[in-house]
């Protein structure tokens, strides 16, 4: 049973990184799809009731990850709370709009954005942003629907990441024994050929030793 749990744990530890990559790929595609300067995903953090930048493509990619804003302020907060998508373009004269504090911190002040809620079943899990499209590109209802469809994919990525993190938290919370086993299984999984055979042999010896 412990081996099975360890195997599951190893899967969890490995999948968090895979899910993060999937989410990153999602924002990269969103950016390309709409020819935008940047695209980002906010994850809703239930514990702190905040929105956290989880993946960023383009402008701000190196500085925004991990930045937090209150869950019901700014445009992203409005989108999360009201479940309504929005497009804003040519915002003028306003230093506070759309998470202006973040813009100040990064030095990147977007002129326009599209934002859609990421809904998993009936729960909003985050917000997908597409920032600064080409000036000549007018945003049509068709594009909003396209973004809505795309949001489903992003929501699933985000939900998988959330689940992997929760699973890891459970493992870590369950005591160091299981965590140690999970790491051992993961290490073993990374070995190949003779090294792997040796590793398995070592474990068998350890098992016999422990049984005595």
């Amino acid at each position, binding site marked *: 049973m412990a081996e099975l749990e360890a195997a599951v744990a190893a899967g969890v530890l490995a999948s968090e990184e895979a899910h993060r990559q999937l989410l990153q790929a999602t924002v990269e595609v969103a950016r390309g799809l709409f020819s935008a300067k940047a695209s980002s995903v906010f994850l809703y953090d239930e514990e702190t009731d905040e929105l956290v930048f989880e993946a960023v493509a383009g402008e701000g990619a190196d500085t925004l990850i991990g930045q937090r804003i209150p869950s019901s302020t700014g*445009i992203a907060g409005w989108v999360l*709370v*009201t479940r*309504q998508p*929005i497009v804003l373009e040519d915002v*003028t004269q*306003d230093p506070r*709009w759309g998470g202006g504090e973040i813009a100040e911190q990064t030095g990147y002040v977007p002129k326009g954005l599209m934002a859609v809620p990421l809904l998993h079943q*009936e729960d909003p899990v985050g917000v997908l942003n597409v920032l600064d499209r080409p000036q000549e590109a007018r945003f049509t209802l068709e594009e909003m629907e396209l973004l809505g469809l795309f949001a489903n994919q992003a929501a699933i990525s985000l939900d998988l990441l959330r689940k992997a993190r929760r699973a890891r938290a459970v493992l870590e919370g369950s005591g160091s024994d299981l965590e140690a086993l999970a790491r051992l299984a993961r290490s073993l999984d990374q070995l190949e050929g003779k090294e792997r055979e040796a590793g398995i042999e070592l474990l068998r010896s350890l098992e016999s030793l422990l049984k005595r």
Partner: protein
Amino acid sequence: MSNAEPAPKRQLPAWSLPAGAAESLEVPTVWPSRVTREWAWGGSTGKGVRVCILDSGIELGHPLVGEIEGAVAVQVEDDEVNVVEDTEGDLCGHGTACAGIVRSIAPDCSLFSVRVLGAGFTGSGTALLGGLRWAVEQGFQIINMSLSTTKSQFAGMLHEVADAAYFRRTVLVASAHNMPVESYPWRFSSVISVGSHEEKEPVAFFYNPSPPVEFFARGVDVEVAWLGGGSARSTGNSFATPHMTAICALILGKHSELTPFQLKHLLYLTASNVVDEDG
């Protein structure tokens, strides 16, 4: 019966119409045989109509919004809802944008802000429901709801409040969702649900015979009021909704006696794809 003493009026807890009582059902508005937009809202500025913007607040003193009647914020603590005076204005700009759209079409209506944002996401469904309940109790003629919730646990309670509003002559104008998801309250038949069309004309709106969304109003590339006294161009059903709210305000400014049922019927008759004359 005619020579006898009039029978004392009885208050029976039943919903029926006794013989001879039909004349007591007053329907004050006499509708013309051919309803026109001129008859529906010609000359109206929305004066005398109280419109509530249930949203992120309204920025005070914004030139595109002007004076507002008042502003409250809905706060949630341990599932308890408190409604307090709001001094923070608008927390993201959206409520101001909605207020500005209503003002641009119905310049003399009264605008009141009920802010349901700012309490954090966790309490947002409770704040939305609490804010809507409060607004219905205040007797606003129109409540603009450019928002919805996907939480089915709130659906039943929202439905009750929407029906209560309908019977109290408070019209709820609610944004349909731009995405293929279940959300509320726009799906209820007691509200006026609004999606977007792409035309430029502010009072162009269309009746949709294939509900749940019943009307389409202007919602693409709209010039709106934004924070800091500024403006922005925006797109979304949440901006189509205040266009419909404003048209309702114009109609109620001229025909204040209309029930929500009659108002919706008049919207149907004056919709751009139904009415047979220009505005």
